Structures are given as C-alpha cells and as structure tokens.
C-alpha cells in the first residue's frame, strides 16, 4: 500500500477536481484550452497589428500601391514635415480629435449621471423598461441612426425652424453640417456606453455612507463629492474608457454630420484607405492614434492607482 503510494507520488500524480491526472497532462490541457482564444488573438489582433506596423514604415507608389521600403517618411509627414515645409495640419487633426472625444465624454457623463440615478431610483418593475429604452439604440445601425439625426437637423425640421425663430441661425438653413451637430450625434451614440456602467455602480451604492456624510455636517455638494462619487468610481472609470476610446477614432458621425470641413483623425484614416489610396500613411496615422490612446489610458491608470484607495 505504502509502496504504491510512493510510486504514485514519484510519477507526479495529482488530483484535480476529483480526477486523477499528472501535472504534465494538466499543463497540456491548459494549453489546449488557451489555444483557442490564443489563435483568435493571433489571427484577429496580432497579425493585423503587425501588418499595420509594417505598412506604416513603407512607402507609396505612383498608382497608390504599397512600395516595400523602410522609411519613416509617413511619421515625419504626420508630424507636419511635408513637402512645402512644416505645417501643423495633421497634428491639428489629431488634437481636434482628442478635444472632440474629451468633450463628447464629458457631455455624455454629465447626461449619464442623472440618468443612472433616475433609473436606479425607479421601482423594480419599470426599471428594466428604462434600461431597455437606453439599450434599444444599440440594436439599430449607427449609420441609420445618424441619418435620422440628419433628418432631425435638416432645414425643414421643427428643430431648425425653432432655432431660426429664436435667432440662433438664419432662416431656412439646416443645423448640420456643424460642430454642434457632430457633438449631438456623438453624445447620442455613446450615451448607452456611459449610462450602463454608471448605472451598475449607482445601483449598488451604500446609502448608509451617504447618511453618515450628512450626519457629519457635509453640505450637499460635499455629500456628492465625498460619499457618492467615490463609490461610483469603478463604473465611472469603465464609462470613461468605453466612451473616450471609441470617440477618438469615430468617423461615421463626424463624416455625416460634420461635413468635409470638420475633419477628425477617423475621417483622415478613412480617406487614406479610400479615395487618397495612401495605405502607408493611413497605417502611420492609425498607429499614431493607437499610441495616443494607450498613452491616455496609461495616464488614467496611473492617476487611478496613485490617487485613490487600493
């Protein structure tokens, strides 16, 4: 009996969830399980990224084909060093995209907060109806939704007529293409991303902490900032990420509602892969956008772990 046990231990047997196996077989099984998502990541993330990085360092032929030379020309062009001297055009576009994404995120959060509290305060029965109302736009196509906005903002619409009557715009003109229209469309499309994570945080709020703050002489603002806001921070962080990052690369909404004059980085990239046929430059701009986004995420994480509690 003892001898058999010793032999088993020497062969490296172990029990895993009731099954007798060896650690080697266990490792193989783990590898097999990880292989499927690994393959997915390889095919759909790593390979495209590698291709993009490779193309970013390539050049453009006269007919728009890719010429495989190693050069940093695209990046220099992105930084503004063009044929006619230095111009900040592309940097401006990058900056404008950051700004639009930021404003969209802030506006979305400002709207999402009261909405999250409102939905969380509804009785259980109607709560899911409200959540459904927020989620339904998800199920419709973004382009179709944006076209709907175009209709709403066209010169014949009641909204445009109201704006003309109040004196904001000239009579008979549409409310798009314009910067305001872009913001409206962006916030509209990103609001569900902002509301849902915030709602989950708000729903599990510990109200006794809020009462404790009131008991300790805090004004309403202080109660919000010190008792409510910190508790919603996890949901807020997710909402921020889910809004800001897609907003950085958005191109459908700015294209349709902003027109040709209001170019964001998404439009720029789309153009390179479309009419301009400059894939290497497009890849370079995409890489630039990706690095910028990652930098933003990095700063966010640093702030989060340094400033907040563990």
């Amino acid at each position, binding site marked *: 009996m003892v001898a058999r046990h010793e032999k088993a231990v020497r062969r490296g047997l172990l029990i895993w969830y009731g099954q007798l196996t060896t650690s080697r077989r266990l490792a193989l099984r783990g590898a097999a399980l990880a292989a499927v998502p690994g393959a997915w990541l390889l095919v759909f993330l790593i390979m495209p990224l590698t291709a993009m990085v490779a193309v970013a360092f390539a050049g453009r032929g006269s007919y728009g084909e890719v010429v495989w030379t190693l050069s940093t020309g695209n990046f220099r062009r992105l930084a503004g060093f063009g044929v006619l001297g230095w111009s900040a055009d592309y940097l401006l576009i990058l900056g404008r995209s950051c700004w639009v994404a930021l404003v969209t995120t802030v506006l979305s959060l400002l709207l999402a907060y009261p909405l999250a509290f409102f939905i969380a305060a509804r009785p259980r029965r109607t709560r899911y109806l409200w959540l459904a109302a927020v989620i339904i736009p998800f199920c419709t196509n973004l382009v179709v939704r944006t076209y709907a906005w175009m209709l709403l903002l066209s010169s014949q619409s009641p909204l445009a007529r109201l704006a003309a009557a109040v004196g904001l715009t000239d009579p008979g003109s549409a409310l798009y293409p314009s910067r305001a229209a872009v913001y409206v469309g962006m916030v509209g499309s990103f609001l569900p991303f902002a509301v849902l994570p915030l709602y989950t945080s708000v729903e599990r709020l510990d109200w006794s*902490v809020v*009462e*404790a*703050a009131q*008991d*300790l*002489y*805090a*004004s309403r603002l202080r109660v919000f900032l010190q*008792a409510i806001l910190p508790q919603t921070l996890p949901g807020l962080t997710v909402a921020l990420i889910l809004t800001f990052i897609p907003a950085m690369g958005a191109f459908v909404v700015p294209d349709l509602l902003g027109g040709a004059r209001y170019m964001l980085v998404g439009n720029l990239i789309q153009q390179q892969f479309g009419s301009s046929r400059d894939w290497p430059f497009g890849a370079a701009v995409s890489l630039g956008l990706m690095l910028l986004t990652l930098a933003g995420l990095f700063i966010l994480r640093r702030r989060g772990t340094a400033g907040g509690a563990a």
Partner: protein
Amino acid sequence: MSGRPAETACRGPSGLVRLAPDAPDLAVAGVGKSFGTVRVLHDITFTAASGEFVTLLGPSGCGKTTLLRIIAGLERADEGEVTLCGRVITALPANQRPINTVFQNYALFPHLNVHENVAFGLRSRRFPCDQVDRRVGQALAMLQMEPLARRYPHQLSGGQKQRVALARALVNEPELLLLDEPMSALDAKLRAEVQLELRRLQRRLGKTFLLVTHDQDEAMTVSDRVIVMRDGAIEQTGTPAEVYERPVSRFVAEFLGSANLITAVRQNGCMQTAVGRLVPGRMPDWTQGTLAIRPERILVRRQRPAANAVAGQVREVVYRGDHVDLFVEPGPLRVRSAPTTDLHVGRHVWLELRPEHLVALRD
C-alpha cells in the same frame, strides 16, 4: 475631550445655547411616523437628561431605529417635536444638528483612511488644519487606534471599524451621540468587552448617549435608563433595576430575562392562583390578571415559609454551572437556585415568593 460642566455643554456648530441649565438635553414629544399605511411610531414622548446613557430596547420592528433616525435627522417625523437643549430641531436637516451617529454597519468612507474618516466632520465644518490634526489625534488616542491611523477601512477588523466609527462621531463633540445597534456585528466575547468600554467611555466624557438595541444584556450593562418599546409605542421607562424588578406588563417581564407569569384572581384582599394564595408587594386595581416573579427571586425553603408559600415537586433539573434551573410543579415554576446536591427530580420542596419581588402586571 474631557467632560465639560453642564452649563457650557450645549454649544454645537449651530451655536445652540442651553436655555435652562437643568433642562433635559433631549426631549421627544408626541412623535409619530408612518410608512405608507403602516404606522411605525405612536405618540412617542420621553426625555434624556444631560450626561445620561439612555437605551431604546425592543424587538425587531418595534420602531426604535426609526425613532433614532428621526432624532438624527435622517427621517422626518409625521407628528411631534424633537427638542435639543431647549431648541426645537424637528425641521433641521441632519447636517445642521449637533448630533452624531454611530451606524450599525459603521458606514466608514471606503476611499479615506482612518485619519481622514475621523477628520471628516471637522473638515466639513472648516476647522483649521492644525486643530483638525490635534483633535483627530486625541480621539484616536482615546480609542487606542493611533497606530492604525493610515489604514483603510477594508484593512480593519470589525472591532477596529467600530472604534473608528466612534472616534469619527465623538471628535465633533456632539451634544448627543446616537448608536444604532453598534455591537450587532461583533462576536459575543468582544461584545461583552466593548459594552463595558462604552459605558466607561460615556462616564468619562459625561455626554448624553442614546443607544438602540434588541439585546437586553447590552441594555442592562450600559444604560442609566432603559426605554422598552413595542410595536411603535413605549411600554416602560426606568432604570435597568426598575424595569427588571418591576415590569409593568407581560411583554416587559418576558423580554428582559425570564419570568414566571402566574394568573391570579383577586379574592378577600389576596390573590388566588393555581399555585396557592399569594400576596404581592403592591395590590393592583384589577380583579383578574397576572403576577410575575423572576426565577432567581423564588427561594427554596426547607420548611414551610410564613407567607406566600408554595408546595411543589421538582420535575426537572438543569445544571448551568454557576446555578441550577429547577422546574417545579405546580406551574411549572422556574426557579433558579445555587447548585446544591440535594435538589433532585421528584423531591418535594417549599418555595417562598416574597411579596417585594412578586409584581402585579397591568395585563
């Protein structure tokens, strides 16, 4: 943070000044509250004197926590008035009342460390930084929490969190401290220690404390006065001794400790009961009712006692270490006795129910 003399005791952030030096700190008058159609509090009236430790004792759902929250300002009473140091505070919001609360789940701010938690109230009132640090240091020292000042709530044990909650409330030197079942989350051994510590702390500070609990042991240990509540109304008020020795109703008699309840009919100036003829300490008005006597007050005698004698036979003996519980027929009467060896099942005994311990209940 030492106890202050009564005259200067009433100066909170709202600048309340005691109108009369001997006026009670807290006066609740005619308070009523309903949640929808459910009437949770009926006409509650009581006072708490300065430096008194008052406990609201009652079973779950009797309205004691609602009453506490009304006093704290976290709920609004439908009727009645709450007065603090002579000033009516019924309509004041919670953040303007010089009252602080220790919550049942402590409600510490999870994103602030212990020091910042305790400093919260002072910072809300815009105390200068050096004063804040000094006071917080004193409060933490008083509750022996100094070494943990930089820790966060999730790194503390239940007992430590409770101390932080206490420090956070007391550092603001409130006129009244409210405690909502503060020991319910602690284990039994720790609870006993903390009860004594709380009582000593209150004596040292000389502040008025109002505690809410369903644990009658706790109420007896810490309080100067106990208010027994039931179904939204006050059943009885008195010192722990008064409420224990002289309960007014079956509910109070059975809620605090155990009691022998004997149905009695009044006849010729004494009480006729199933266990014999008894004379209570004070004759009641009713002709038919209940008498109560505590198990430890029934004396086992070798010979028939002169008055209030009951002849019985021991049916059951339960050994409890420091005492023995006897169940004696008729009744059965529950008797607590010293653990002597000659009391065994079947033995005939004489019991004396002394009149001063035999209480006539009102129902």
